[in-house]
């Protein structure tokens, strides 16, 4: 890209805020009532993490993997990439995340969700933001309920909840599972910022909190 220093964030925005949020409305309408299943999956993850953190690492990883694959295919690839050609290059990363989760979960004894230090507890809070708080946001930002971003359907709450779950996880592959959700939240936050949307701070704050929590754990060690 020539004269790259002359470009602003807004120059990379290909669509209007109206088109962006209507995209969620259309997607929600198209796949209803799958939301009930993905929310139930989110609650199942929360219950397993809270009550059986050591025994069901594989199931937690598999559920998360299925949801990343679903979001990557049905939302990013099939819908968002239509108005933003750059997303066609991003969507496969969600597939890769699904693959990493399957591999990480399947490896014998490699993933457990049993960390309850301060970082782990913060992770559970972040997970709750992704599963419970995100669907409630539309009226706070003056949008219709139909545009709600649901865990397992929309990328932001899925990435945020996954980060939370991963902060409570232990095992060899865990560090490999952070980059894709973190980078997605950075991209999404910058996109919302370029749109002038006040919700932009939320994905950025979630990503920054996760990074800070990881740093805190490292310092405490």
């Amino acid at each position, binding site marked *: 890209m*020539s*004269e790259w220093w*002359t470009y602003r964030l*807004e*120059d990379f*925005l*290909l*669509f*209007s805020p*109206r*088109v962006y949020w*209507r*995209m969620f409305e*259309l997607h929600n309408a198209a796949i209803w009532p799958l939301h009930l299943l993905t929310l139930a999956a989110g609650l199942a993850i929360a219950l397993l993490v809270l009550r059986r953190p050591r025994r069901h690492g594989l199931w937690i990883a598999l559920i998360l993997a299925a949801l990343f694959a679903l979001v990557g295919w049905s939302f990013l690839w099939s*819908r968002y990439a*239509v*108005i*933003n*050609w750059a997303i066609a290059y991003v969507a496969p990363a969600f597939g890769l995340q699904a693959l990493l989760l399957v591999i990480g979960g399947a490896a014998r004894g490699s993933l457990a969700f049993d960390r309850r230090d301060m970082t782990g507890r913060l992770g559970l809070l972040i997970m709750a933001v992704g599963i419970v708080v995100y669907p409630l946001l539309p009226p706070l930002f003056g949008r219709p309920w139909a545009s709600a971003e649901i865990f397992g359907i929309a990328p932001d709450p899925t990435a945020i909840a996954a980060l939370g779950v991963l902060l409570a996880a232990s095992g060899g592959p865990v560090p490999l599972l952070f980059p894709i959700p973190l980078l997605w939240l950075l991209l999404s936050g910058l996109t919302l910022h370029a749109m002038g949307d006040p919700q932009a701070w939320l994905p950025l704050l979630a990503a920054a909190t996760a990074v800070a929590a990881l740093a805190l754990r490292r310092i405490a060690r």
Partner: protein
Amino acid sequence: MMIITRRTFVKTAAASGAAFVLPGTAPGAPAPLMRAVPSSGEMLPAVGLGTWITFNVGDDPVLRNECAEVIAAFFEAGGRMIDSSPMYGSSQPVIGYGLEKLGRPKALFSAEKVWTSSAADGAAQIEQSRRFWGVPRFDLVQVHNLVGWEAHLETLFAMKADGRIRYVGITTSEGRRHDLFEQIMRAHPLDFVQLTYNVVDREAEERLLPLAAERGMAVIVNRPFQQGALTRQLEGETLPDWAAEIGAGSWAQFILKFILAHPSVTVAIPATTRVDHVRENVMAATGPLPDAAMRERMAAYIRDL
């Protein structure tokens, strides 16, 4: 002094009907100003339709129909040139949808771009764009932002020689790469150049606009409203009384008339999602245009706001 915003102007125009007759919509209404393409003498209405952001609405059926209504109003008002690019997301299929819905208006002047760094992919991309639009051939294909310009110009001139396109051009925006742009203008027999020019961004006046006149190239002006930032900034500001002398009833028309009054400018291509705005934009190409002294007064007025 009365404060007139773009919104209040449009409402007033709609309400008063006879006072603001739209070109092409009523008998005896003024036709838009026509400008000649220097390389052919073909006459084009001086206001076209851009599609950056505004037509990238994806598969949304409601918004697709709104875009079709904008295209319909554009043609009804006397417009012809619609400009797009493979870079604009779903804009190309949305244009194709609108044209199909309107029964393929004969007035269309299709302006497209090639945008790929791969020399080998240029022809295939143009063909894909043509299918999206659903036109037999493009009138004009431009090298978007000079990406891969050497190879693409070779392709485009060959396509022109074969009759597969009618005109060849290059584009830039927001003042980028003007030095290279000038070199290409001097070295190649382009039919069109597309650049950013408005009452605030006037760098093109120094070299590119005079050079286009000297070399006999038509000029398409993009981002006339700085992607809406300029009109948003002026909303609520007072339109001077003397704007009536040039027939500008809104800030949008004030800005467009400033652009169209430059003798080198052929077509300005504002983008919009609104039917009332597209009519208002084409209407800017009717009535008097400012002379050089008035243009300086207009620029100074906006600068001092």
